[in-house]
């Protein structure tokens, strides 16, 4: 396939948290607001005068200092953020909006405060208390938290405008990004997709890590470009898979999976687009902030949600994605030491295989793809098993047809 025009530029932008577009927005006088978790409503951080940066630690190397502070037994993502922060890699931030949603990330973000890691006198860290189920009183609580932990401190410290007009403006911009990403992502449903999982992963990460106003033009152009893009005639994959699991902000993982023979057609992982790139529908007759908050609660697929309906919904979503994207199987991945996905992947992959009849494999991995050699072997084995299943299925169908 012909290369996407902006892909190289996007890949370069992903090499730094404080990338060229972040610097450009900062130079325009905008506030850089860091966050890590889906439970922090992204759109609130994109009100006029601000832009959100979902924190990554690209090109992570040694984690020695972070290991001293947080031991060997915590996830690589949280430690990589701490290490990068100690190196001064997030000095561009004006605030860090956290949530006590997983212990490991919570501890990592606390170090920003404890060790005064951001060289900015106005910098602050706040933590939301996020509920575990969706009921009227938990929605109310979540909205209150958004006000107390995001809106009020940002208004007081930086005079950020969170009026209804400002919120609607942020939602409009967010929705345009989502529409474009949905349009681009829908090509992955094709029999022979005109976009690879890796390319989509890069584009999607850009939408999380760069100021939206500065990438919209390029996204529009990419969407246009894709309308006429022709896929290679000969398929360069042996099976299509849905990837489900914990935080994955290194597109090299998707590349590694695709080099192993699988095409990633749906990204149902943290930092992926499902959920994350759904439009927020606003009813003008209802409270806007409540609707925004509810959107994030309803769309969240985080295993932290405990109620029966949410647990069931997570499994049904994966099954739906397999069907919708014509996938052959599901790869459950877990960043090592992530408690949530450690349990979720074990049980869900059993259920997929044994009860839903969807082939699945379950793997753990490091934060960066460079240290995940074993993953390649696991994916190759999974792809082979999917091929064997396909052959067996075809044979069975033949036998039935003949007999």
């Amino acid at each position, binding site marked *: 396939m012909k290369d996407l025009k902006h892909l190289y530029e996007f890949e370069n932008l992903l090499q730094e948290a404080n990338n060229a577009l972040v610097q450009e927005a900062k130079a325009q006088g905008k506030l850089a607001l860091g966050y890590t978790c889906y439970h922090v409503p992204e759109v609130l951080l994109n009100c006029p005068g601000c832009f959100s940066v979902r924190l990554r630690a690209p090109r992570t190397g040694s984690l020695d200092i972070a290991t001293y502070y947080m031991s060997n037994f915590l996830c690589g993502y949280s430690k990589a953020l701490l290490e990068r922060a100690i190196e001064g890699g997030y000095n561009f931030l004006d605030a860090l909006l956290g949530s006590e949603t997983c212990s490991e990330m919570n*501890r990592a973000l606390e170090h920003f405060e404890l060790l005064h890691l951001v060289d900015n006198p106005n910098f602050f860290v706040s933590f939301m*208390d996020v509920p575990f*189920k969706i009921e009227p009183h938990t929605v109310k609580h979540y909205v209150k938290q958004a006000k107390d932990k995001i809106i009020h401190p940002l208004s007081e410290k930086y005079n950020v405008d969170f009026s209804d007009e400002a919120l609607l403006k942020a939602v409009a911009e967010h929705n345009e990004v989502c529409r474009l990403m949905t349009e681009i992502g829908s090509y992955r449903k094709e029999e022979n997709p005109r976009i690879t999982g890796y390319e989509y992963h890069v584009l999607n990460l850009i939408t999380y890590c760069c100021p939206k106003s500065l990438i919209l033009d390029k996204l529009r152009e990419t969407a246009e470009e894709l309308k006429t893009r022709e896929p290679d005639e000969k398929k360069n994959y042996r099976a299509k898979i849905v990837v489900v699991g914990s935080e994955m902000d290194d597109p090299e993982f998707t590349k590694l999976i695709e080099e192993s023979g699988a095409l990633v057609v749906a990204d149902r992982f943290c930092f992926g687009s499902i959920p994350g790139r759904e439009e927020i529908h606003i009813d003008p007759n209802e409270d806007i902030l409540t609707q925004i908050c509810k959107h994030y609660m309803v769309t969240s697929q985080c295993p932290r949600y405990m109620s029966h309906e949410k647990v069931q919904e997570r499994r049904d979503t994966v099954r739906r994605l397999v069907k919708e994207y014509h996938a052959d199987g599901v790869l459950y991945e877990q960043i090592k030491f992530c408690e949530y996905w450690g349990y979720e992947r*074990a049980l869900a992959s059993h259920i997929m295989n044994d009860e839903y009849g969807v082939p699945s494999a379950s793997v753990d991995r490091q934060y960066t793809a460079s240290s995940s050699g074993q993953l390649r072997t696991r994916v190759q084995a999974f792809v082979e098993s999917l091929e064997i299943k396909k052959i067996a299925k075809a044979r069975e169908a033949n036998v039935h047809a003949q007999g």
Partner: protein
Amino acid sequence: MLKDKLKKLKNIKIEPDKIKAYAVDMFGKPAGLGDLYREHTALLKHREWRGAGDTLYDYYRWLVNWKDMIAMVGKAPVSCVKGLMRYRWFASYLSAPAFVDRHVMGLRGPQLRMAHLHYNMIVKHTTKLIGISMRADERFHPGNKLSKKIVLMDEIVPNEVFTGFPNLIPIPLQTLPIFLASMVDQQITPPYLEVTESYGVPADVCPLPSGEAGVAIEDDYPKIGCCMISTNMPCDGSIMNTSFLDRRLQLPSHVFGVPLRYNDEDVQEYGVEEIKSLIAYVEEQTGEKFDWDAFFSKMRDYNEQLDYELQKWDVNKTDYPQMTGACFWLYRIFYFNLSGGSNKRFLKVDKKVNKIMMQAYEKKTPVSKVMRHRAVVWSCPANYYTSFANWLENCWGINVVMDMETMISYLEISADDKEQALRDLARTYQRSIMRKHTKGGYRNVVDELWRIVEEYHVDTVIMYDQISCKGMDGLNGIFDDQARERNVHFIWVKQDLMDPRTISRRDMRDQVNKYMQTVLQEEPVDPTLLDFEDDLAW
């Protein structure tokens, strides 16, 4: 045969340094305790000699514990025998008297009496729970009515709110099969952990929820109850094992969410709503109405117990602490979580213990033979070595005057105002076991430690490094940095909560030994306890 035995007796040589130890022992002070252990199993060769009065008292209490256990079987012999055959964990409770013995080693006088009163209450309440569970088990008695009266709850949900349902029986689901069983018998958890790991859950998750999931996968929970209350407490792992438990139980269930950022006022309304929603759910499932009078009456007992608890703390702040070791926290978590004011016997025990304690304090009775260091134990203790604090005391003269688990909620609950009571309950639940310090921000565990170090005049911190606890691991460096600034003896003790295969009891002791011998260059109070094998012990 007889000749052989006589020959063996003649060949026994008593080493000179041991003669002294035995001589001291004869006068009743603890010494040579390590010589009482058999190799590997750490079974006692004979009971500890504590002087005539204390030895007799100790033996009498040993008999009382057996009496309580036999009485439980006597009430439902068939159910108990079936339970023994059906559930792997059941047999672990046969070693309960040995569990008590481990925790009273070296104790004398008032300390021995207080500890025995507390441990016997633990035995009594546990036998009650086991008895009910077996009689209500639908595997043994299909369709029985008792089971329908049982509301299962996650073990971390404290019992206080259920005192408003006097006709129902709240049973903490995981307590008997795994949490308590692992304290009594260190060998019981590994098989369940292996089951979970074979299922695909990584071995690096916290072994408590992992073991609980293992019991579910193995189908080893009693088949009881009409509904289940699960919760987000205490940590990420226990949130996640809920789906394993739900899948096995197949009961209607309710998620009871407790706010995490509990120091913030803005979470309190949500906390109260969750209590109300829990009450409404139980009412709906069982047809019972919340009885405020019953609740208030029990909360009066709860508050009185709390008052006795705070007196223990006050005494321990002085130069003459009276209750050290594991008894302090074990009893505390037991009555806070499992009774929550519901069992009046706890209050009676508290009254008795308080009387003994205050008399001993007035007489300035030393709490142990030697008290070289006042210590606080921080982070979650290892279930497989709950008597570690007793070993610290007997071997090194390190007396634990306060610990993290004891410092759970100490807020009173209103016994006459409904709205206030709900607010108090919400705040109390936010500060329950294993989550008061690990949730809500680092201040709750870091700053809180230094406050206690100061208040209790502590010179040593025994810092458990529970290697799978993500909430605590995430602050390792900060603890180290701040300990250096404060110049306290900060002794890291690695452990794996429920899994003695990773870090054994002996390994735990070794870490303290090394610090005491190399950094502090001290000699042990009882050298026979310095190193012994107990890998095959209960």
